[in-house]
């Protein structure tokens, strides 16, 4: 058994090593060079990762949950906030997820970013992100969570816009930042509300006080509302922003503009799950408000089905996986919404492995296809890059939930929980989830079939053309969206090459995780030993979880059945009868357009928010600032002053008698002034 002192040292090392690595790589930047930056950051992360597993295993073995105060942050009146590292099982789960994926992504980036001129900056950002994420999950108070919350937002912004010379990249970075502000605003209001209600931002104190505060009301936006429900919903708005739930999801697909390892780390495995983590961390609060939980359930279910439908039509390999992430996050939320927080965390845990795997495989494909991301120009790649192919198949069977893979255990428990909750929202979520699972299976296999099977369609790609014609091969990382010419078939003489070993190692490690993480950890998360595992950290209803093992047979087999239907459909459409998809699209043009354009969310937001905001901004700029403030303020005054200087010059004629006249007028004016007064 480890001593508390030992745990304190370890947790501090876990959290602060990435920060130190960030400072070294970020400040040293080009002065220390690529190699040093890579070794420092990756080394720090692997140490963090190893220590995280030690702590996690210790916690499973029954080590007590502890808070380790690092320093006082600030204290102002009643508001006192510490920098604290909280070590409990919920944090432990997050620790291993974050540090494992982060360490592997750091390693993977050695290969993926090998030709980038700005590598120290890239690795510094990755480490900064990891530090912020760790601060988030180890927080014992909401202000520190918010610190980490904003920190990961910043790192995400910097990394999405890493290739800042590309207009689409910085546009996506700004979009991610702005959309997250909406969520953050809700989160902040939630924190304010909690401080108002409980007089503290300490999470444990707040959660202990929740039963007493039940039924309390306060005035919000001019209405007397239930305090707990309002606060829970406000916190959930924050979670929606970070975890890309409808309607705050629009930034996530665009975030794919960032380098692929970033997508794997931030936009699949870790940052986007912060919302789920927040809901689980605050689970007693959500549990105390059935209304809030119902909302969480419906939003999760809607996102699950929405994103799954959109994913079926996308051509960009990363966008398909991005929508898939969005959809899986929806699964986690509705699991939390029906009260199965353990199932939500379990799905978060397994999802991290197989989704990171899928992204890194996609990155490997993109790497071998010379930065081509459009699946229409793939095909027949399984012979060229076999290892990537097999890793990606493993990721796919895990996400679709083939029996005894990770996804099978976690997704089934999520769906069973939705069914067993017995509420209307739960049933809706179940049926939506089942349909979303069908679509998940379909689009995942579609991705595999389009990428690795069929005939090579590489000739149509500009990137490939570039690579073939340009003797030097890789020119830059620019990526063009304009592939409007008809897909040509053939290899165009291009030979895809398997990725270097540093990129393949993470694939192998994650493949094991995707295959076995579910089976290994099932008992602890949901399957029997969960009561001791969670140990009161999240709300856990033993009877409810027990009932998950006794669902009706049809419910029990439903996920497997829909998974097979999806697989078969994808096989039929893309292997057996390759022309069918085009025929289908022609037949249902509008449906396809609706899905392909992501349910027109972006267009809707553009019309409702962006255009009026731009109009308002232009109005304030042209009419308000230039027309009013500038005109009567600075511009007007300068005109007056300039005119005055001309007048003053005219008076200064150089003639003595006019000078004398001015003096006499002055004296006369003063004298008159006193006479009339």
């Amino acid at each position: 058994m480890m001593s508390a002192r030992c745990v304190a040292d370890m947790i501090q090392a876990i959290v602060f090593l990435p920060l130190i690595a960030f400072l070294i790589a970020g400040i040293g930047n080009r002065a220390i060079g690529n190699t040093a930056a890579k070794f420092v950051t990756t080394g720090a992360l692997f140490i963090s990762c190893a220590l995280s597993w030690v702590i996690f295993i210790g916690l499973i073995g029954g080590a007590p949950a502890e808070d380790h105060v690092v320093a006082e942050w600030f204290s102002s009146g009643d508001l006192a906030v510490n920098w604290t590292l909280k070590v409990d099982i919920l944090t432990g789960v997050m620790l291993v997820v974050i540090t494992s994926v982060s360490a592997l992504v750091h390693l993977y980036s050695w290969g993926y970013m090998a030709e980038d001129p700005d590598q120290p900056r890239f690795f510094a950002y990755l480490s900064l992100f990891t530090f912020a994420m760790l601060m988030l999950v180890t927080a014992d108070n909401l202000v520190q969570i918010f610190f980490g919350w904003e920190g990961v937002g910043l790192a995400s912004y910097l990394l999405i816009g890493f290739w800042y010379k590309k207009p689409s990249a910085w546009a996506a970075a700004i979009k991610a930042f702005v959309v997250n502000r909406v969520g953050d605003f809700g989160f902040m209001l939630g924190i304010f509300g909690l401080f108002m209600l409980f007089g503290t931002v300490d999470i444990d104190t707040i959660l202990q006080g929740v039963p007493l505060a039940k039924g309390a009301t306060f005035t919000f936006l001019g209405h007397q509302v239930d305090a707990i429900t309002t606060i829970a919903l406000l916190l959930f708005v924050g979670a929606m922003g970070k975890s890309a739930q409808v309607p705050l999801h629009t930034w996530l697909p665009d975030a794919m503009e960032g380098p692929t390892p970033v997508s794997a780390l931030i936009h699949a495995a870790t940052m986007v799950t912060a919302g789920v983590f927040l809901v689980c961390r605050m689970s007693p609060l959500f549990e105390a408000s059935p209304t809030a939980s119902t909302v969480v359930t419906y939003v999760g279910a809607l996102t699950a089905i929405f994103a799954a439908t959109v994913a079926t039509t996308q051509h960009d390999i990363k966008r398909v996986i991005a929508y898939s992430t969005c959809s899986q996050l929806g699964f986690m939320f509705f699991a939390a919404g029906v009260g199965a927080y353990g199932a939500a965390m379990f799905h978060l845990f397994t999802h991290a492995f197989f989704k990171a795997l899928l992204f890194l495989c996609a990155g490997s494909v993109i790497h071998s296809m010379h930065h081509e991301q459009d699946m229409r120009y793939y095909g027949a790649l399984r012979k060229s890059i076999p290892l990537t192919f097999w890793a990606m198949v493993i990721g796919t069977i895990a996400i679709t939930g083939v029996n005894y893979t990770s996804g099978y255990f976690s997704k089934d428990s999520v769906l069973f929980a939705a069914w067993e909750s017995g509420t209307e929202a739960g049933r809706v979520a179940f049926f939506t989830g089942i349909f979303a699972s069908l679509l998940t299976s379909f689009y995942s296999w579609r991705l595999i079939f389009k990428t690795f099977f069929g005939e090579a369609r590489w000739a149509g790609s500009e990137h490939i053309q570039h690579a073939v014609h340009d003797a030097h091969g890789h020119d830059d990382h620019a990526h063009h969206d304009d592939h409007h010419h008809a897909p040509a078939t053939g290899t165009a003489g291009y030979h895809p090459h398997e990725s270097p070993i540093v990129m393949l190692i993470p694939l192998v490690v994650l493949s094991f995780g995707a295959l076995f993480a579910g089976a290994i950890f099932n008992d602890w998360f949901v399957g029997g030993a969960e009561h001791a595992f969670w140990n009161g950290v999240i709300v856990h209803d033993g009877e409810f979880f027990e009932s998950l093992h006794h669902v009706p047979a049809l419910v029990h087999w439903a996920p497997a059945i829909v998974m097979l239907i999806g697989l078969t459909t994808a096989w039929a459409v893309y292997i057996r009868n390759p022309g069918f998809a085009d025929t289908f699209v022609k037949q249902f043009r509008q449906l396809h357009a609706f899905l392909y354009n992501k349910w027109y969310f972006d267009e809707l937001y553009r019309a409702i928010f962006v255009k009026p905001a731009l109009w308002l901004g232009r109005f304030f700029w042209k009419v308000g600032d230039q027309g009013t403030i500038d005109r009567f303020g600075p511009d007007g005054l300068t005109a007056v002053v300039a005119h005055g200087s001309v007048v003053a010059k005219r008076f200064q004629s150089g003639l003595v008698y006019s000078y004398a006249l001015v003096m006499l007028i002055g004296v006369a004016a003063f004298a008159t002034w006193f006479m009339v007064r």
Partner: protein
Amino acid sequence: MTLAQSLSIGAPEVVLAAGALVLLLLGVFRGNDSLKGLSWGAVILFGLTALTVIDDAPARELAWNQIYVADSLSAFLKILILAGAAAAVLMALPYMQRVKQHRFEYPVLIVLATLGMCVMVSANNLLTLYIGLELMSLAAYVLAAFNRDEQRSTEAGLKYFVLGALSSGMLLYGVSLVYGFVGSTEFTRIAAGLSAGGERNMGALFGLVFVFAGLAFKVSAVPFHMWTPDVYEGAPTPVAAFFATAPKVAAMGLFMRVALDAFSGMIADWRQIVIFMSIASMFVGAVGAIGQSNVKRLLAYSSINNVGFMLIGLAAANAAGASAVLLYLTIYLVMTLGSFLVVLSLTDADGNAVETLDDLAGLARSRPWLATALAIFMLSLAGLPPLFGFMAKLAVFNAAVDAGLWLLAVLGVLSSVIAAYYYLRVVKILFFDPPADVVVNGEGGAVINNGMMIAAAVFCSPIGYLLLGPLAQATRTAASSLF
């Protein structure tokens, strides 16, 4: 009171007067070649006079039947005047040699003007005031026309003389009115007479308007400022530097003594005039400078603008205001002398003086240190923290706010924003404009001048703050003798 006692109290003036005669005689016998010797003689004379001033006990002493006063105020002002005059004598030496105006009268005239100024600041009687003023002015008229072969210089001297005569006439008229309606020309008695009468003394008020007009002419406050740009531009540069410094100190000190001592009973009345003159000076000085292309004219407007700020302190009419004016005068003296020193040291390839702003373009590349010094003076004049000029403005604004004249302070801040424009424009021209075709070789400066320039620049830089303590103490002591 015996004559001996009076002579001892009035020692500075006695020393200066005797010294002036000795220097004049020496000059007459030794000719123009003695300029250098006479100049250093004048500086030594100023030094000796300063010693007699410092020797004076800070107690207030009257001499020559109460027409002369020696107190801490006059002592403080005399030190400033002597320092300014000494600088004016020294800085002229290289210039005189360059422009072939190698004449021995220059230091003698400066000494005589200084004598007049010392009499002014020690005046305790309207007639002493007038004598001192005229002594200074007559010397100044001649100085303005010192380059007698040059048309601009003679024109400047003539204009100054004519307008100066007009203002002296007004002053004298005012003096006679005050004497007629109050019954005395002595400051203490005027003050007593004005506060004794229950109702408002309209005649004395009229007299006050005229006396103030005469004094405002000397400090070049609007609307009695018109001569300033023309005279500064036409007069030889060291003379303009002299006009901008020592006489301003003397006239402002005298103004304070007349307003706060003799007319202390009519503060509410004269305050209106001073406020008007202050606002008008600040804005005319700021706005007028914008269109100028000649550095000397620019500095003339700058001095008008700065007088406006000093008048804020006078309008406050309290001890804080008076000491703020004295602090302002000290800092202003150094900033202005420094600016003129830079202008003096600029010549083109033929040795002609460089005076237009266009010629200064890109000076930072050819003469970086000179440009830096000028930039420090300009930014300090603009009142930009952390330069010392900021403290001067802060002090007068504080005094005004203390006296409840917050509107005046606000207007002062506004005008200083406008004024900042042309000061910054000079800096921009120095540092950011493409270099002018004119070759500025800057060989006009001598070692002494460069030394003074460096000292002035250091004083204006934040290092000057080290002097703030003793300076504030001295100005407080000096101001206390008025209240």
